[in-house]
């Protein structure tokens, strides 16, 4: 019984580790200078940005503070 739990935890930890590792590697390689303008333009998704915020967690918190009733 414990073996199945260990396999489950091992697999989930493995996937999380894989994600963290690929994110780390991706962040190490900077966006090429020639692509910076295109990169910034592409990130201007209007679904969230149209109300003045962004898609980040901190932006969401700020937005929630703004709409919080008195």
């Amino acid at each position, binding site marked *: 019984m414990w073996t*199945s739990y260990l*396999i*489950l935890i091992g*697999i*989930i930890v493995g*996937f*999380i580790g*894989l*994600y963290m*590792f*690929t*994110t780390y*590697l*991706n962040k190490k*390689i900077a*966006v*090429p200078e*020639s*692509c910076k303008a*295109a*990169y910034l*333009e*592409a*990130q201007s*998704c*209007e*679904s*969230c*940005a*149209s109300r003045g915020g962004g898609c980040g967690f901190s932006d969401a918190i700020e937005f929630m503070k703004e709409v919080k009733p008195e």
Partner: protein
Amino acid sequence: MNLIAILISAMIVNNIVLMQFLGLCSFFGVSTKMKSVVGMGAAVIVVIFLSAAITFPLYKFVLIPLKIEYIDTIAFILVIASLVQLTELVIKRFSQSLYKALGVYLPLIATNCAVLGVALTNITIDQTYVEALFNALGGGMGYAFIIITFTAIRMRLDSASVTKALKGMPIALVTAGLMALAFMGLAGII
């Protein structure tokens, strides 16, 4: 069902945006400039296809034999997010022109529920690996087709005289609703 029928079914009849209502955030958020949506559509096709190519065997040959298929959603989310990071990294490192055209949209796709939706749909249908790949390819092509069509309509609406109250996102939502109604007419043909 033959492969062409699967492709057309996934692309038009069971369109992921208009029939399954997946990927609506980027659908409304990015559909303002034609240049952006062509890149976004191509990036979605690549990511959906690659994620289906990995998640389908992962489910059949790892999760089912280990009897942990109930973690499919969390496993797929992590695998897709890792895959998007890896794809972005490789494109950024080896081809700047490809990165400019496709890669810049990859961060938006990492959180696109259309990708996860296709991966999860693939495992619920009784089909082979090749059929799953065609289903994913059709799903991605359907997304690209609809977002390009929708952007063309939105660009036309920008120069049309629309009531002030409906300008912008409201008329875009009405348009998307009408498009979904039109696509509902195709339900059941395949």
